[in-house]
């Protein structure tokens, strides 16, 4: 009975600084930095360490492996002459102790010197600078497609768990991550260009169209800025097939991952609580379920970017897309070590930076990191 309950003397846990919580506070030595600042500083530290580690890896691979750089530079005939070899070694600093060589290498890197291509004799960094925007354009196209499609398919699959839709999406995504991207590229190019003629041919633009004035190096963006709509449409048309092909693998990856994180979230009480408030399905799905699943998904987008970079190296050649990938492909097939190492270094650093940004987004999105 209501009447039987005794008169409250102020509810204990509600009284603002309750005695128990006050004591608990005394037991905590507060962190010296704001958690978000600490989080960012740690991420920066880790990224710098990793980038340093990447330089060590590329240096060691260039210097410790059986392939003799001197022989590669000199060619067979000159390499047979010990005197020329010795001279070259000295010129390249190869007679120095390894640690000295590393610091020379590092200081060269810091001055933007990634070495010179054995084949073309052009500085590696310069060439990378020229082809980099093409890959960025392709990468952005592919990541946009794969994030949108992957997340939606994953969400759909999870919300329709164990239905025919779910099974179909799961099977397709498994097939998607099973196909070699460079093969899909070949087949897609053959079908859509060679047979059906629904997409434009290789390259970033039709050969008779001049590239837009260079600002960002991304043809679509530059064309828009300079108001050349015809060039823009053409560049966009050329972008469609390569980015879709490149996105295929990451779509599979993201679909599978977002499905499992959504299934994870659905089990939480707060989803039931949202339903118990009579909110429309749309709100429950997008405000509650999707937002919860987003945090783990964000981190995977960083990983997905890595597979995009790998995919680019293997597919750009097929589309004659003059980017980092095609540059790397040429370097690999001619065993041009400075080129390969340069590309490896640059991609490693880009990948680390992307993951750093992804971590920051994560930190800002999740209030448990952001708010003390």
């Amino acid at each position, binding site marked *: 009975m209501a009447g039987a*309950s005794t008169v409250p003397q102020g509810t204990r846990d509600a009284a603002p600084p309750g005695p128990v*919580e006050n004591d608990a506070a005394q037991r905590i030595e507060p962190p010296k930095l704001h958690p978000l600042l600490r989080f960012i500083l740690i991420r920066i530290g880790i990224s710098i360490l990793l980038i340093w580690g990447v330089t060590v890896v590329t240096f060691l691979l260039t210097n410790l492996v059986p392939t003799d750089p001197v022989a590669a530079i000199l060619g067979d005939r000159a390499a047979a002459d010990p005197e020329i070899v010795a001279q070259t070694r000295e010129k390249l600093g190869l007679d120095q102790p390894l640690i000295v060589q590393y610091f020379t290498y590092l200081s060269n890197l810091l001055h933007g010197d990634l070495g010179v291509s054995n084949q073309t004799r052009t500085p590696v960094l310069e060439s990378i600078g020229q082809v980099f925007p093409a890959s960025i354009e392709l990468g952005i196209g592919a990541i946009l497609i794969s994030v949108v499609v992957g997340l939606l398919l994953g969400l759909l699959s999870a919300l329709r768990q164990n239905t025919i839709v779910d099974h179909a999406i799961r099977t397709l995504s498994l097939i998607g991550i099973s196909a070699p991207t460079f093969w899909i590229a070949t087949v897609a190019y053959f079908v859509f260009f060679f047979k059906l003629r629904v997409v434009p041919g290789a390259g970033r633009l039709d050969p008779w169209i001049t590239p837009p004035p260079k600002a960002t190096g991304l043809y679509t963006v530059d064309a828009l800025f300079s108001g050349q709509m015809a060039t823009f449409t053409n560049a966009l048309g050329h972008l469609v097939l390569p980015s879709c092909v490149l996105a295929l693998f990451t779509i599979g990856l993201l679909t599978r991952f977002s499905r499992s994180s959504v299934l994870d979230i659905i089990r*939480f009480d707060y989803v039931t609580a949202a339903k118990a*408030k*009579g909110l429309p399905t749309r*709100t429950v799905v997008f405000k509650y379920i999707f937002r*919860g699943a987003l945090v783990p998904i964000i981190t995977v987008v960083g990983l997905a970017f890595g597979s995009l970079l790998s995919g680019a190296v293997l597919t750009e050649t097929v589309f004659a897309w003059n980017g980092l990938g095609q540059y790397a492909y040429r370097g690999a097939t001619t065993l041009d070590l400075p080129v390969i190492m340069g590309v490896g270094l640059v991609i490693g650093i880009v990948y680390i930076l992307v993951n750093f940004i992804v971590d920051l987004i994560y930190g800002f999105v999740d*209030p448990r990191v952001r708010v003390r």
Partner: protein
Amino acid sequence: MSMISINGLNLSVTTGKTTAHILKDVSFDLEAGRITGVAGASGSGKTQTGLAIMGLSPAGAELSGSIDFDGVELVGMPAKQHNRLRGVQLSMVFQDPASAFHPMLTVGDQITDHLRHHQKMPKKKALAKAVDILGRTKVPHPDEAIHKYPHQFSGGQLQRIAFASAIICDPKVLIADEPTTALDVTVQAGILRLLRELCDDLDLAVLLVTHDFGVLSSVADTIVVMQNGVVVETGDRETVITAPEHEYTRSLIESLPGAEVAR
């Protein structure tokens, strides 16, 4: 007249090829201004009874029988129609307050989104009402609380916020599923007192699901004892606790520590 009248309610859940009968011929009433406590061991179907009223039975569930809510039949009601009752007339509070709130949304957002949806109330007005309601459920500094995130509150405070969210649309029925189980004993008393006050002041029909006879003895007006999906005993609080009729109820009460001393 009863606010909710459950009559011959059956619930079976089919997963794959197996069908489990969760509720068998369950009947009892909820009355406005009274707390009906449902007791039972885990797996007795007490939680599923509450979820059935809310229309939130698990996937693969089949309901039969009747749940009459103020003249409206809830069993077999179309989902959309049920959705218009949820949060407005039927509301619910969960066991673990830490997991019943979305960690990435502010408290103010979460306790007003159904108010804004159902009553089309503008955000500003809704938040003002939220401050009001949080004060009523004795959450400290309500005007600051609405801008905070769930992890910034203790379990007891979050449960008070959950009660605020449950009553903000002036519901007629409140289902409290083990609302104090996750809390410390000193915090529990405050939450029970809040539940009693809300029930009396707002004339709520409360369904209190718990396995704790101490809780039932403190706040329940009527006690329903369930075992394996069957109601084995229904009666007023004092009778069920001091003179249980059914053997199962007796064994439950006798298994409590120090029960002899209490009598």
